[in-house]
């Protein structure tokens, strides 16, 4: 039987033993109000799938304490998220990510499609592909997959 000596205990940096749930970064040089910085970042985390339906959000007080801001500010951020249909709050239980409604998801997919198309156009310009040629290519690919 061996016992761990003090030398065996590895130094664990602070960063690995914390209660990390998500990244929220507050800047005081940006003109955006702090409550908006929080709600925008949580929305992004929900839309990109980092936070999933049913996931618990940190309590308003935990958020306020860690970011060194007032609870009123975090409350305002959560109220905005609730109003926009991203989260649900239950008194005494906390706030949770809402199951995404179809419309919200569709809008998000539209946004992503646009973004990808933007990349496609940039690539097409790089190899001097005309718009007509591109349309032709798109019809072929879209139609080909759709008809299967």
């Amino acid at each position, binding site marked *: 039987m061996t016992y761990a000596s003090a030398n065996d205990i590895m130094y664990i*940096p*602070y*960063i690995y033993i*914390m*209660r*990390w*749930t*998500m*990244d*929220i*970064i*507050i*800047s*005081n*040089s*940006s003109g955006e109000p702090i409550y908006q910085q929080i709600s925008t970042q949580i929305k992004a985390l929900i839309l990109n799938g980092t936070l999933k339906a049913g996931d618990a959000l*940190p309590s308003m007080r*935990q*958020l306020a304490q*860690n*970011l*060194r801001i007032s609870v009123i500010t975090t409350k305002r951020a959560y109220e905005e998220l609730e109003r926009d249909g991203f989260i649900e709050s239950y008194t005494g239980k906390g706030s949770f990510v809402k199951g995404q409604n179809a419309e919200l998801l569709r809008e998000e997919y539209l946004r992503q499609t646009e973004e990808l198309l933007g990349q496609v156009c940039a690539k097409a310009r790089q190899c001097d592909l005309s718009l007509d040629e591109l349309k032709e290519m798109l019809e072929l690919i879209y139609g080909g997959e759709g008809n299967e």
Partner: protein
Amino acid sequence: MNDYTNAIEVRDLTKRYDGFTLDNLSFNVPGGSIMGFIGQNGAGKTTTINTILNIVKPDSGTVKVFGLDHIRDEKEIKKHIAAVFDELPFDDRLTASDINVIMREIYDQWDSDKFFAFLDRFQLPKKKKFGKFSKGMKMKMQIAAALSHNAKLLIMDEATTGLDPVVRNEILDIFFEFLQDEEHSILMSSHITSDLEKIADSVTFIDKGKLLISGCKDDILESHAILRCSRADYEALDKSDIVSARINDFSIDVMVSDADECRRRYPGIITDKANLDDIMLFYVNRDKKEWR
């Protein structure tokens, strides 16, 4: 009075107490400027100031005031120094009129008219005993007495601590007026870094008896910055660049001392300006590197 470029020159100042050492401190207060002297409680600010005033004898090191040795030429130097402390040094039973009589005998260049003008300006009563003065009145009283013998150097130890913002502003205005004369200089220790940010030309920052930073305030503020990092950002940082990092459950604030270089190297990370409070906080925790 001979020629000098630095109103105060502190060289390799060392003073050992049980449990505290002022360690090889060197800095200059350039003539015609105002230097803020910052550090935590117990960092050694008052010990340094008391040594400059020859109230405390150093174990080693030299202090020059107006280019003169602070012990050998003490009498000559003190004719031109005014010191203001956080407590009123006058007896509670005295009044402003008594101070005028006493100071007239002590200082060759005591200016009664100037003194009474300050009393009027600060709305201080002449016949009221100091025991009945409020904290703000006591501080204004000290400043009135300090600036009425044509001093060239004003040394303030925590003088604005505990005063309300309106009175502090009034006092800062007086300092600006005092500095209109190019020969006048101020060394001012304070916890209220926002005051120093307003008026100081240079800043000296000590911690646990050691000098951390001394230099032009604008340079110090511009070279330091806080990076607002996500966990992934933080893991990608070159840790040799950082002063220290404050960690919370959602983000990590990182103080760096080369702001421009970091903006170039990490363009994706939000970089906020640091104020003197931030700089003090992150430097005091620099041994821990990561703290909450």
